[in-house]
């Protein structure tokens, strides 16, 4: 199960010439000319196909393994979404193509905007952010723009719970804000008293995930909202956990002013080995003038004008002079958006609500089973949302087998590991998110594996600490990786 680097297959003069036009001499003035030929693999088409096919087999993925990576919503990515986003016309459309040759695509985008407004309770949606973090950026930037447009320029503080995703404080900083952390209570709710202490005239806003990163619903969200709004701040909703509440409760109704949605989580576009994602943003009334451009508007067409009822057009800086601007050269990850569109149309009204129901059922069932098996939940008194945390602090203390060891050993059992050591406030934690697309049998098998590993840990801790054994590599030396940086392959000279 070892596959050499593609460069080791390379030989001068080898290639895949069916893939490029016959060579013609380029016309490059001497001073601009490349002197040494670029070093790229020179391999046959079969060698490339075989190499990358073999590499693919070294991965765990949703299509091959249960992948309960908390906070990442690793659910099934319906194949139709991929196929339909890759129709030749969809792949071939240039981003600057005339609107008259783009009505099919624009119609999809407009309907996606409308559906996302509906499920979140927001007033406007822009699809342009290319990832969750960029959606967060857009959200905080809009909050800043809002205050500044009102001349309320002192508001430079963004409040963030200590359990938040790292992107939240990083985004606030990137937007030039100061980050104020508030702590999470033992019961998983935010510390309202602490919040009261920090909220005030400098407050630009608060960034929350609800259900939160500790896997529970923030019950006092209405109080939080009125507290922050009362102080003149706005509420930002991190959509990472939207999967848990689809059709049950809407961020707009909770009082949020702006929200980003991870389409690659809730709306099941593929994670692609770490992207592309898509971080569409939704806004309430107050932030409508600040939305990032472009987005799609629909106009009724006067009767008689062909058989189409509507015409769709791009909205840009000219339409929205107060916009925070553009976040990508074109309109964001259009292909991802098409996949989300297809997914939402397939699920429809009832299907979207079922997402939250069965994701929550699976999480609570898994939690109950693990609790019965003696594993320790971080928030034993609480309902799980679509994910939950168990802590291995007892195992770490008593057996010397920590959360990472459990995680690595799970790989040998054929399960991708849950998220480890996040959120930071729970020691030795595993954040487990089964998603709605996994079956009870799969969950039962996962419980059985954890029980078996627990038993191994009691009988032979070293065995668990040495895991994994059955993967292409054993545990990797991350310290060496960081100290003896090897970030690119260089051929041995000579």
């Amino acid at each position, binding site marked *: 199960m070892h596959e050499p680097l593609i460069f080791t297959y390379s030989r001068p003069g080898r290639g*895949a010439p069916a893939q490029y036009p016959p060579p013609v001499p*380029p016309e490059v003035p001497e001073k601009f000319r490349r002197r040494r030929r670029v070093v790229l693999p020179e391999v046959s088409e079969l060698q490339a196909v075989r190499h990358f*096919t073999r590499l693919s087999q070294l991965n765990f993925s949703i299509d091959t393994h249960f992948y309960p990576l908390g906070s990442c919503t690793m659910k099934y990515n319906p194949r139709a979404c991929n196929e*339909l986003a890759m129709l030749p016309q969809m792949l071939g459309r240039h981003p600057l193509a005339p609107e008259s040759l783009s009505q099919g695509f624009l119609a999809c985008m407009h309907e996606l905007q409308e559906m996302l407004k509906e499920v979140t309770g927001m007033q406007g949606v822009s699809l342009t952010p290319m990832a969750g973090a960029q959606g967060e950026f857009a959200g905080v930037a809009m909050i800043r723009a809002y205050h500044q447009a009102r001349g309320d320029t002192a508001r430079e503080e963004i409040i963030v719970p200590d359990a938040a995703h790292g992107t939240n404080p990083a985004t606030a900083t990137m937007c030039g804000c100061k980050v104020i952390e508030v702590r999470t209570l033992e019961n998983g709710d935010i510390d309202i008293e602490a919040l009261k202490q920090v909220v005030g005239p400098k407050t630009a806003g608060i960034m929350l995930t609800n259900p939160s990163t500790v896997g529970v619903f923030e019950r006092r969200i209405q109080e939080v909202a009125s507290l922050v709004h009362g102080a003149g701040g706005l509420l930002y909703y991190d959509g990472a956990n939207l999967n848990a509440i689809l059709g049950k409760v809407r961020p707009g109704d909770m009082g949020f002013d702006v929200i980003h949605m991870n389409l690659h989580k809730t709306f099941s576009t593929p994670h692609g080995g*770490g992207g592309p994602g898509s971080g569409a943003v939704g806004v309430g009334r107050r932030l409508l003038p600040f939305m990032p451009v472009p987005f799609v508007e629909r106009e009724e067409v006067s009767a008689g004008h062909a058989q189409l009822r509507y015409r769709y057009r791009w909205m840009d800086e000219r339409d929205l002079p107060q916009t925070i601007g553009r976040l990508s050269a074109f309109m964001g990850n259009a292909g991802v958006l098409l996949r989300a569109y297809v997914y939402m149309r397939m699920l429809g009204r009832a299907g979207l609500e079922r997402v939250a129901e069965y994701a929550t059922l699976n999480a609570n069932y898994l939690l109950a089973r693990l609790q019965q098996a003696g594993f320790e939940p971080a928030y034993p008194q609480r309902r799980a949302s679509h994910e939950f945390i168990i802590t291995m602090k007892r195992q770490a203390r008593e057996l010397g087998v920590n959360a990472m060891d459990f995680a690595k050993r799970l790989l040998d059992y054929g399960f991708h590991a849950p998220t480890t050591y996040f959120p930071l406030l729970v020691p030795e934690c595993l954040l487990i998110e089964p998603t709605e*697309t996994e079956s009870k049998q799969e969950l039962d098998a996962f419980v059985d594996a954890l029980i078996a590993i627990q038993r191994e840990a009691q009988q032979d801790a070293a065995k668990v600490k040495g895991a994994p054994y059955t993967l292409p590599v054993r545990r990797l030396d991350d310290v060496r990786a960081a100290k003896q940086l090897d970030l690119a392959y260089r051929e041995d000279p000579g």
Partner: protein
Amino acid sequence: MPFIPHTPSDVSEMLAAIGAPDIDALFDEIPAALRTPPPENLPQGLTEMQITRLMHARAQLDGQPLNFLGAGAYEHHIPAAVWAIVSRGEFYSAYTPYQAEASQGTLQVLYEFQTMMANLTGMQVSNASLYDGASALAEACLMAVRAHRQSRSARILVPATVHPDYRHVARAITTGQSLKFDVLPYGEEAGTLDLSSLERYSGQDITAVVVQHPNFFGLLEDVDAITDWAHAQGAMLIAVVNPVSLAIFKPPGEWGEKGADIVVGEGQPLGAPLASGGPYFGFMTTRMEYVRQMPGRLIGRTLDLDGKPGFSLTLQAREQHIRRSKATSNICTNQGLLVTAAAIHLSLLGATGLESVAAACQANTSALVEALTGIDGVRLRFAGPRFHEAVLQLDRQVDGVLQELARRNIAGGLDLSRHFPGLGNALLVCATETRTPEDIRTYAHVLAEILT
């Protein structure tokens, strides 16, 4: 239930294990006042058959016009093998390789990609990609401010010949920071940065100078001179490049005496379909000395417990999930799938292929320019050496001409009147290696009809 595997008996057994009467009870911590009725305005679900029919109809509505648009997104041939492999579930449905042992496929591909991009740009180190070319420029500007410890000004000089929407994105993304962008004019005749406009900055504290090469008009900037000027001023040089062009053009690492400091660009020409603008990927390479200021994921080669080589995420201390508010960027995901496509694409093309593509693009654009400027009312605006884009001047408003071309199923280029009103009736056209002589004849024929 589509995509949900639960049978009625599964559900009742699961609820019994939980000790809940029904699924709705699992939502009992949500305040009742907040619970929403089912969203009536959402459509009913469609079967896959129905949505397939709908999407085919939408696709046919847009058709497949003959395309002469470039302006940052280029129609290249993508080998069929590329997306056949990229679409494999093991790549498509995996996530960020947090569990390195279970993600060696993705990790090795990313490491190979980093190697290819470092080689292509002539730099020492590449990250594992950013979102797109425009946001990569924004990240490069922020990185320069972090990396350039001697500079306090956060002033960045940006020629007007940098893609206008890249400039807009760089402004939008850096808006919360104290960066100052000064736009430098281009020479009216040459269409490239007016070097004399640099003089007024002599001796000032400049953090970085940006140069796009080939520039937005497709023209070649005097990158050696600009790079040397920047370094002489104590400024960093940020290069924005087209990766295909680097097969034939001197790589930024060799510009001037010392080479560029940060190189970014749009990766789309390396295996990503046009696809209405994305997903694409941005790339970024730099010198080893700046690696810790670099945003985005980095893959390193290391050893496992048995001493066997393997790959893992490294220098994560720069990143938001570790460093939180002090991270180099808020960036989290990269564009892993697109980078996989690029690695396969570059492996299939190799140096010879990439050179052939670049040269064919150049030749085709020349042929296009020749064909179109043979029409009364069309002339070439800038005469210098170029890559695969050219500015034409028409004798009337471009917008109406483009609409007429669209009716004839031709995407004729980009109207420059909005971003460059000073250019008058200017049209940016492009012909990559995918355009045949017949395509070019067709365009010329139709345009001649429209203009006469």
